[in-house]
Structures are given as structure tokens and as C-alpha cells.
């Protein structure tokens, strides 16, 4: 990937006095939806603040589409950031909040008004735009912040916990919006601690723990690198699970075989999934078993998070 096409961290560290924010981050974020995952204090917000210039690195450099964050005139023409701060300038309506900040882009009234209307429509806030933000619910405040971040049609959208405070319907709409924006070629960087939603929306993940990046990439690829330490769990539902279990025990790459609690299938742990799938295919072709379904049981963000971070996962 060309450095001018992505978001690049080169050996970036950030210390707040003696407190570590992030350390030695080496990252390259391509277009699509990238989710930053990690427990509180792991460095997710620090990474986002570094790429938008709200904080400056103690060491290393950051480039967003080739632009340093110290150049706000160029950076924020192409980037938008919806922070986690639930605070707004006093006395403004939702419309003012978007329109007046768009005027900072030196847009004329007509263009700013047009983009404001479009952004409000995208987050379904048109009806409430004339009311003061102080009267908004938490969900409405979240949506008006999102509208403000996307109003100038950025190429890079950074969203810090954007689903917080949204009801299920609004969450679904927001996720659909993120997908649409990513489909339009945007870099969408999201931090979230709601792992099943991360699974739904991410093209790639960056996992952080104690200020270090512990894993990055597509979740299947990350999981694939952990097979030796944490064998891949595969749930196989078939007509004769005990026969399958007996065959599997003889295989080298199979680490464990457990009967599923409903006794309708097996939970197989393997360090060599390809060989396992080959064997399974062979047994099916021989007519030894009748297969109902095969699916990885721990190839999701939640499981990878558990293995890397949840179990006291240390720094890389």
C-alpha cells in the first residue's frame, strides 16, 4: 500500500508524563472499516488522537493519506473525527453546530447549508436540527456528533465509541452508514468494546493492550497465527459424532475432541485446520458420516480478544 493511500504509524510512542499511552506502534491502516479493540486504557483513544493531532507523539511519526497531523488545514479537509467527548459548544442548535463549523472550511452559505442538510438527513436528525443540543437525548447527541464529523464528506472518518448511547434501531442504522461509507472507499476507523458488533462491521482489527498493538489484520488471519498456542475450535454437526471422534483421535493435528453438550455434534480443537478439513471431506465422500454443518467456533473477535487480552494477554 502506498503511504499516501493509508494511515501510517511509524514507531510511534506517546507518554503522558510518566504514564504510557501507546508504545512503539508500527501500523498501516488500509481503506475499509478498521476497528480498534482493547480494554479501557489500552491506547485506543490515544491512537485516534495521535492520527488527528489532538495529541502529539513523544516519538515517531504519523501520516494520514500522506498528511502530517500538524497540518490541520490539509488534514481536516480530508478527515473527520467523532470523539467520545459528550460535550458541545453552549447555546447552539444541532443545525448551527454543523453549519457554523462547516463555515470554518471557508465554504459559502449555500454549500455549507446544503452539506448540513445532507449530513442531518444521513443520521436522521433533520426534524430535531432546530432544537438546542442541550435538549437532546444521549442518542441524539451521538448522532449529531456523527453528522458533524461526516458533514464535509471526508475520506478518513475516525469514530471513538460511536455506538455508545444508541438504541438498537439507531445502532443498526449507524452500522449500515459505516458500511456505506466504507463501500464508498473511505477509511473508517472505529474504536469499540462491543465485540459482537465489531465482528459484524470490521474488515480488519487492531488489538491493543497496555499501550501495545498485540495483533492486527483480518480477524481470520490473526486467528490463524494463533493455532499452535490456541488450537482452532471447529463445531461439526453430523449423523455419527462418536464415529467421527474415534477417527479424529488418531490424527496428529487434532488437539482435542469434545462432545457438544446437545450430543448432536463434536467440538474439535485442531492445530492444522487444512488437514482436518481434508480428513472430514474424505469421510463424507466415503459415506462414513452424514454431515449437517461445519463452522469455526472461535474464529471471531471475541475469542481472539479472550486469547490475546482477556486471559491476561501481555504485550507483544
Amino acid at each position, binding site marked *: 500500500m502506498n503511504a499516501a493511500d493509508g494511515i501510517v504509524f511509524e514507531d510511534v510512542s506517546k507518554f503522558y508524563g510518566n504514564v504510557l499511552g501507546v508504545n512503539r506502534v508500527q501500523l498501516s491502516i488500509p481503506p475499509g472499516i478498521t476497528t480498534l479493540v482493547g480494554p479501557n486504557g489500552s491506547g485506543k483513544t490515544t491512537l485516534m488522537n495521535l492520527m488527528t493531532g*489532538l495529541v502529539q507523539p513523544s516519538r515517531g511519526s504519523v501520516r494520514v493519506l500522506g498528511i502530517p497531523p500538524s497540518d490541520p488545514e490539509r488534514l481536516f479537509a480530508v478527515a473527520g473525527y467523532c470523539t467520545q467527548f459528550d460535550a458541545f459548544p453552549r447555546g*447552539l442548535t444541532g443545525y448551527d453546530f454543523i453549519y457554523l463549523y462547516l463555515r*470554518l472550511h471557508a465554504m459559502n452559505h449555500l454549500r455549507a447549508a446544503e452539506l448540513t442538510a445532507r449530513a442531518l438527513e444521513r443520521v436522521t436528525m433533520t426534524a430535531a436540527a432546530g432544537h438546542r443540543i442541550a435538549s437532546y437525548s444521549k442518542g441524539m447527541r451521538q448522532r449529531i456528533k456523527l453528522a458533524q464529523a461526516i458533514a464535509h464528506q471526508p475520506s478518513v472518518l475516525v469514530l471513538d465509541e460511536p455506538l455508545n448511547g444508541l438504541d438498537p434501531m439507531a445502532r443498526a442504522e449507524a452500522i449500515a452508514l459505516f458500511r456505506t461509507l466504507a463501500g464508498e472507499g473511505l477509511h473508517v476507523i472505529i474504536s469499540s468494546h462491543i465485540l459482537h458488533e465489531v465482528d459484524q462491521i470490521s474488515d480488519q482489527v487492531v488489538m491493543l493492550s497496555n499501550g501495545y498493538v498485540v495483533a492486527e489484520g483480518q480477524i481470520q488471519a490473526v486467528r490463524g497465527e494463533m493455532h499452535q498456542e490456541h488450537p482452532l475450535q471447529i463445531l461439526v454437526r453430523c449423523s455419527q459424532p462418536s464415529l467421527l471422534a474415534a477417527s479424529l483421535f488418531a490424527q496428529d493435528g487434532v488437539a482435542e475432541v469434545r462432545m457438544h453438550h446437545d450430543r448432536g455434534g463434536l467440538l474439535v480443537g485442531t492445530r492444522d485446520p487444512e488437514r482436518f478439513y481434508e480428513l472430514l471431506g474424505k469421510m463424507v465422500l466415503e459415506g462414513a458420516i452424514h454431515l449437517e454443518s461445519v463452522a469455526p467456533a472461535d474464529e471471531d473477535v471475541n475469542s481472539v480478544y479472550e486469547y490475546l487480552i482477556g486471559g491476561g494477554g501481555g504485550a507483544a
Partner: protein
Amino acid sequence: MSPGVRLWWAQILAIVRLELKKNFSFRRAVPLYLLAALPPAIFVGHAIGYARGWTSCHGTEDLTVFAGVFQLFVLRLVVFFGCVVIFLNLFRGEVVQKSLHYYFLAPVRREVLVVGKYLSGVLTASCIFGASVAISYFVLCRHLAATPSAGLAGPALQHLGTYTGVTVLACAGYGALFLLLGMLFRNPIVPAVVVLVWESLIVFFPSLLKKISIIFYLESLCPVRVPFEGPWALFAITANPTPAYVAVPGLLLLALVIVSVAAVRIRRMEISYGTE
């Protein structure tokens, strides 16, 4: 005008527009309106008192009284505290409210942001306190003369212009100072009180120290000199007023230097509300 300068100018206008909307929003401006209402209230009270026979009127001596009220009350307290409220809010207030990042996330150079915010503060303070001084003087003249036109004729009109101009200069000078203090200190009220004490005691300082103040230059520009009377007058040190051709550009230059320091300072500013 080059495209870069045109862009900055458009952005400064956008910042001023946004800030004026915030500054004049009703709740936020109420303390300022109340503060600005005090000087006219004094002269309205004096006029009512005279009309009802409660107070006496010494004709043109009231102009000296006005000069005293202007220098000792309006400049040192009303404009001073008004500028504290307006200019400390520009950055420190936004940090406390956790809303400064919206500006930092706009495609605006931080130096341009400082200039835009400063100008919006000067405009707000000048409108509110300039109007307060003008109304006060108008009330006084209305009280002194039979008709408003007669009251505002000749030197009175000139004095009105001078007092209003000095008020605007005070807003520019104190405003720049409090803008910078709001960036340098987490609790800028303490240094603001130090400035207030310094500006109040300046009358007792030798002439060299008097020049390290804003009030000395502002008083030099006032059309009527106020004699310092009472037991404390024994300790007062008089100094020749600075001529207007030095005081006005000097104050503007001082404001420019302070705003420039603020512009340099803001380049290193980080958003970390959690530590505030």
C-alpha cells in the same frame, strides 16, 4: 489578496461568527449585561436623585465625577472583570466545557484560531462595554443640559468618542492578556487577581513601574484628569501622562505581542480534558 490570506480571512470571519453567536447567547451573556448596566445605573440614579431633590448637582463638575467613575470603576472593575469573563472563556472555558477539540478538528491553522477568537472577544467586549460607557455619558449629558443635542455638542461629543475609544483599547489590552493567561494557567483566576492588584496599586508606584501596566496608558488618554485625594494621596506618585501618539500604538503593539505569544503557545497545545 493571495488565496492563502483570503482563506484565513474567511476562516477568521467564520470563527468570529461562531463565537459571537456563543458570546451573545442569552444565558452566557447575562453576567456581562448586568456588569455593563452598572455604570449607566449610577448616572441614572444620580439624575433621578437630583430630580427628586435627594442629591445636588455641580454642573460641569459632574464631568470630573464621570472621569473618576470611568477610570476607577469602569476601567478597573467593569471592563476588567468583563474581559476576564469573555477572554478566559475563549480557551480555558472551552477546555473546561470539553468543546475546544471541535476547533482543533477543523481545517484551520491554530494561529488563525487565536486571531479569530481574540477578535470575537474584542468585538463582544467593545460592543457591550462601549455601549455601556456611551449610554452613561449620554445620561450624564442629558441630565446636565436642557436637550440631548445641546448636551452632546462641542467637547462633550469629543469626550464621548474618547471615552468609548479608551474602552475599546482597554478591551483589546486586557483581552489579549486574559486570552494568554487562559492558555498558560489551569486556574487563571489567581493571575487575574494579581493583575487586578497591580493595576489598582499602580498609582503608588514610581513612573518607570507605572509603564508596566495597561491602566496607566488608558488613563493617559482620558480627556479629564482625576485628582487623587484623601489620606492615601500622600503616598501617590504622579507621572506625566503618555502622549496619545505613543499610548495608542503602544497598547495595540502590546496586544499584538501578547496575541502572538498565544499563537505560538497554541501550536503545542494538546487536548487532554481528563487532566484538567
